[in-house]
């Protein structure tokens, strides 16, 4: 931990500085504005569970789908140097599949939910592989390649349930989208934690980090070092596919219904933004997943803060844009360089004087 800190502040401006600073600023702003923003209460909800409640909980809970998508988006960005803009549409497909299986006769059992989730994963991974193949094999720009699914994805979701927006009701879904009895923390938060741990373990026991970065930075050199960049790129899309399925299923479980038109609408842009705020280059290469996850929370915190300030919902996006411009500019290479220069000048002042003194003597 100590080592990390030293790197963060010792090596100039660390990659995580911007999301950390953004979160701090938002926290301080809210503390000044209204300290009750941070109050967390234990309430009894309609299901009779004792649960945590408060703005902060809504922030962390509400950002869950975004945070999970940001994980996958980071990998795709790193490997392919481009973004997948079809994640919202793909999540609608995964969610529709999830519901379709749940609705197919009989009672909703735990086993059936698991089966539905796995099928949703499978479908999402197949669509992601389609995107990945266009990008990795046919060398189509990621945004163009995924534009196809972005355009038609919600229509496909529409077909799956025959155009209806069926509701599903089951205590199991309430547990996934809301609270598990006796656990006061919203389940989506726990799912994000589980996903983060899975990714961490996956990184620990595979070389995906090194390989993805190598392919993303210099594909030609990566190939001559024996790397199969097609495989790495498609793999990154497949991982994103799993993330899409998980977020889609959370989204469905929260509402207890699938609306193919509105499920996770416009989330692709927020996911890309989370990657950018996390200090990752959208041109690919070096990346930090923790940055993107923090980026997701920054975006959500901003939204909830604006809501708490009673900003009319039509204006929220405009205010969000202003803050995001500031964040992105603050994280830009130009500002970073300027900052590093200022810091190093400040640091070097003393030794320089000493060196000059020695030179003159």
């Amino acid at each position, binding site marked *: 931990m100590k080592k990390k800190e030293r790197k963060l502040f010792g090596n100039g401006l660390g990659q995580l500085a911007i999301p950390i600073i953004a979160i701090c600023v938002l926290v301080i702003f809210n503390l000044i504005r209204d300290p009750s923003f941070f109050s967390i209460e234990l309430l009894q909800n309609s299901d009779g569970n004792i649960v945590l409640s408060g703005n902060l909980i809504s922030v962390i809970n509400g950002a869950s789908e975004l945070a999970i998508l940001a994980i996958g988006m980071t990998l795709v960005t790193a490997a392919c140097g481009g973004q997948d803009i079809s994640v919202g549409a793909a999540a609608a497909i995964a969610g529709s599949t999830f519901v379709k299986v749940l609705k197919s006769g009989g009672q909703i059992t735990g086993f059936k939910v698991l089966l539905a989730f796995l099928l949703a994963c499978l479908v999402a991974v197949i669509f992601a592989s389609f995107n990945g193949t266009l990008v990795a094999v046919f060398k189509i720009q990621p945004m163009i390649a995924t534009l196809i699914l972005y355009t038609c994805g919600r229509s496909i979701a529409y077909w799956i349930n025959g155009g209806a927006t069926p509701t599903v009701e089951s205590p199991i879904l309430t547990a996934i989208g809301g609270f598990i009895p006796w656990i006061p923390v919203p389940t989506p938060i726990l799912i994000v934690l589980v996903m983060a741990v899975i990714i961490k373990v996956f990184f620990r*026991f595979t*070389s995906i980090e090194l390989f993805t970065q*190598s392919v993303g930075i*210099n594909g030609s050199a990566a190939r*001559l*070092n024996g*790397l199969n960049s097609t495989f790495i790129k498609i793999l990154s899309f497949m991982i994103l596919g799993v993330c899409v399925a998980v977020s889609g299923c959370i989204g469905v479980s929260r509402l207890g219904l699938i609306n193919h038109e509105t499920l996770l609408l416009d989330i692709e842009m927020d996911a890309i933004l989370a990657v950018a705020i996390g200090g990752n280059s959208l041109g690919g290469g070096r990346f930090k997943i923790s940055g993107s996850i923090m980026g997701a929370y920054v975006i959500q915190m901003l939204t909830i803060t604006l809501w708490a300030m009673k900003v009319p919902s039509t204006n929220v996006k405009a205010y969000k844009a202003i803050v995001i411009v500031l964040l992105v500019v603050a994280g830009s290479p130009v500002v970073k360089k300027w900052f590093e220069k200022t810091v190093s000048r400040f640091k070097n002042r003393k030794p320089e004087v000493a060196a000059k003194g020695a030179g003159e003597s």
Partner: protein
Amino acid sequence: MQDECLLQMRNIEKRFPGVLALNGVDFTLRKGEIHALMGENGAGKSTLIKILTGVYRMDGGSISIEGSPINIHSPQDAQNKGISTVYQEITLCPNLSVAENMFIGREKGVWVDQKTNEKRADEILERLGIPARGAKQLGNCSLAVQQMVAIARAVDMKCKVLILDEPTSSLDDKEVKMLFDLMRDLKAKGVGIIFVTHFLEQVYEVSDRITVLRNGELVGEYLTEELPQVQLVAKMIGKDLDELNTLGEAGEDGKTRSEEVYYEAKGLSSSEALPFDFSIRKGEVNGFTGLLGSGRSESVRAIFGADKVNGGKVKIKGEPVKITRPIEAMKHGIGYLAEDRKRDGIIAELSVRENIILALQVMNGFFKPISRRESEAFADEYIKVLNIKTASRETPVGSLSGGNQQKVILARWLLTHPDYLILDEPTRGIDIGTKLEIQKLVLKLAEDGVSVTFISSEIEEMLRTCSRLIVMRDRHIVGELTGKDLNQSQVMKTIAGGEAS
């Protein structure tokens, strides 16, 4: 020679995090002079030039042109003040036409008259004797022609100071001669030329004066005719030349002992290489030589499976094997250091450590990552063994000097403990000290039983290290030289196609 000062740089200082790259360096360029800037990699040549061209800001010192002090804010600013540069690596846009490349960033207003530009470009190119047309896409020209287009662009900008940073490293002899004629021409017109190169002969052929840098400090300024070559080298590397001589002797010793054939190819061909036969014994050092475009790189790429392999029978230690992709070659113990370090070698933004372990990690596979501690140990070991100059093992490799980048890639392949190492131009664009180190390393590897194929544009280097030279011309093998035939004139004759042995 006129003694009028054109450019004066005084007491230039530049520091990077952890390194003092330039420490009180002076440099003076006179009108109508070709001034060679010499030094090892990391000596500060590139830094000095980047300060002069506005890429870096200096931390101390002053620059004046024709007596009046100037500040250079950006590369554009440098050009406006009459300082033009042609960099070592080509920095033009390959997907634009030659004419667009020559005039890009110099048009007045928004509208570009394509036709007029192309016509003007044709005129300039013809005057300079450059075999290119303005309408042609730059990427379709050979590397050499691209280089010359870059020079034509600089020349056309009516520069007072022309900087040529390693302009000849990808040119063949004829093109070098053409370039030198052009340089003398410009010199006669009063242009001051700063010439950075690693080819000593070329320095003596064209330059009037030499400034030597070492470790970011000025060693001195000399008239070329008054500084013998041996002394120049000594000043550059800061030690005497006994090492050069001992190296030659080591070469004699190191020449093949084993009779066991390690690798053998019959009729091997790829999308880029015509069918050829080739073999190498265990612990042998051999080399491919030939002019630029003769197919030497394409041949070794076929061995490694770097291009699409079309046919041929390959045996390793007598066993028939199939190598169609780099990973298969690597699994059979073959390593390949590619010719173009920037494009095919380094992963610039990754650290020295990550770059070093990359090939080994790929061989270990996706599910067996090298632990952090292990990779740090590997990196530290090779940084020490190869004397890689880097601030730390976590420094991005892109910020190292060319020679040190090359060492990192060498370390990457040495770490895989190859049985057969292919080195394509490992010494290109790097300083003489590192060149010597690499040649020594090659001989040492051979002593340890590693087979090495060594390619270099400098025949001298190959004669020193190789026991067998395969000569190529027009994508065919035209001769093989061993023993007493291994001398410069015989190589030249074979390349030229006089009398093949």
